[in-house]
């Protein structure tokens, strides 16, 4: 003999049905925001350090980036321990200078100041504004760059100059030569639609 459900039992079932509906909505019906989000973790970042007669470049190929056009957010970070200058000892000196044990990431989180058109062909000049953090110091910066939509994904290229003193980074010395305060930063990353 089947027992009739009580009022409380009906409420529980209603809540469970609501819960299932929520998960189905999340899993099966991607919101518009996800459809316009782009992501990658194999971007290229490099910096150029000027030392008299001794310029050198440091690079990393594990730049992680995400752009959400619906939410208008731009988010990038790189593990500074992955920077490679071509000389192991210089890498170690750089990690000491940046105190990567305490401040492992260089990161940016901001918004697009320029409207972009995903349907447009060719590079689109853009500007972003947001918080850039390195060495535990955060400053609001504006960075010019360009976006290119293609079948491969969304490519972003940008460059700007970082002043070491702005982030309380003591310029290292190579013997008696001091590394320049200005560091030219360049990023290049191909984002793909976020699943």
């Amino acid at each position, binding site marked *: 003999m089947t027992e009739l459900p009580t009022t409380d039992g009906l409420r529980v079932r209603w809540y469970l049905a609501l819960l299932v509906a929520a998960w189905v909505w999340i899993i099966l019906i991607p919101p518009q925001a996800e459809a316009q989000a782009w992501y990658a973790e194999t971007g290229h970042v490099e910096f150029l350090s000027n030392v008299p007669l001794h310029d050198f470049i440091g690079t990393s190929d594990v730049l992680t980036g995400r752009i959400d056009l619906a939410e208008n957010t731009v988010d990038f970070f790189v593990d500074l321990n992955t920077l490679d200058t071509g000389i*192991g000892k210089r890498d170690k000196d750089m990690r000491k200078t940046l105190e990567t044990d305490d401040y492992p990431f260089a990161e940016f989180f901001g918004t697009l100041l320029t409207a972009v058109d995903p349907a447009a062909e060719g590079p689109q000049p853009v500007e972003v504004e947001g918080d850039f953090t390195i060495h535990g110091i955060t400053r609001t910066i504006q960075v010019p760059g360009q976006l290119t939509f293609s079948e491969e994904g969304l490519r972003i290229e940008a460059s700007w100059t970082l002043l070491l003193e702005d982030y309380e980074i003591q310029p290292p010395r190579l*013997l008696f030569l001091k590394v320049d305060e200005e560091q030219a930063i360049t990023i290049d990353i191909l984002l793909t639609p976020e699943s």
Partner: protein
Amino acid sequence: MTRTSRLTAFALFVAALVTVSSASAQMQRTRSAQQPVDELFWSHAIIVLPSTTQLGKGDLDFTIHHTFGPVSSGLNDLFGLDLAANIRFGLDYGVTDQVMVGVGRSRFDKILDFRAKANLLQRDGWQVAGYYNAAAETTEDGRDLADRMSYHGSVLIGKRVTDQLTIQLAPGFSRFVYAPDQDVFGQGIQTSLNNHYSLGTAVRYEARENVSFIAEMITRVGDVSGGTYNVGSFGVDLETGGHVFQMFFTSSQWITPQHAVAWSRTPMADGDFGWGFNVHRVFGTGR
């Protein structure tokens, strides 16, 4: 029970909504799997002993190693600086991040040596490496090449004890193909052995970002050649961009490990040390 179920369902529903809304929040910062090796020593050599530290792939290290005579020689010989100094010029190259090879030439006995070092283990603050050195005395005395050869092999076991303190053990074996008895000044004819066992111990204390204190001891184990002594050295590492300067006092003027193990004739117990210095300059060949 009913109230609990209701609250649980509602909490899960809120969590689901939070999941959706957090998709547009800042990404979680996660460290890369490509992390650098924790170097236990600033240079691939401590003083006489090799260290577990490797050169990076493509790095070329030019080394000048210089040891003067004993300080006990007094003011007349400027505390050893006027006496014959042993000098070794060397080049080492990082074949990979785990393997390095090198060649060097020392003034004493015109020793030409080839060496190699390979990392065997790096885990939880431990580093283990294998080291090998083959040397030839190139003085013109009519001997065949085979009789000029000597070899040294050791296992380097390093451990980071604290952020500032690292230690290393280096059990080793040295072999001299030709080991005639020696007429040691003031001691007469002394027996020389072909085979030598040794235990190297070393410690480094990082006092400042670019200053470390280093000390090492080479203790012979088992039978030793007559008129020879254990070797002690201590000094300081100074690191500048691109260079490591090592200034030290040592009881042996021999620079290659097997010769320091077998041929050191300065009694450390008498406090008879000589001053020396090493300079390491690293060049990148990869970029």
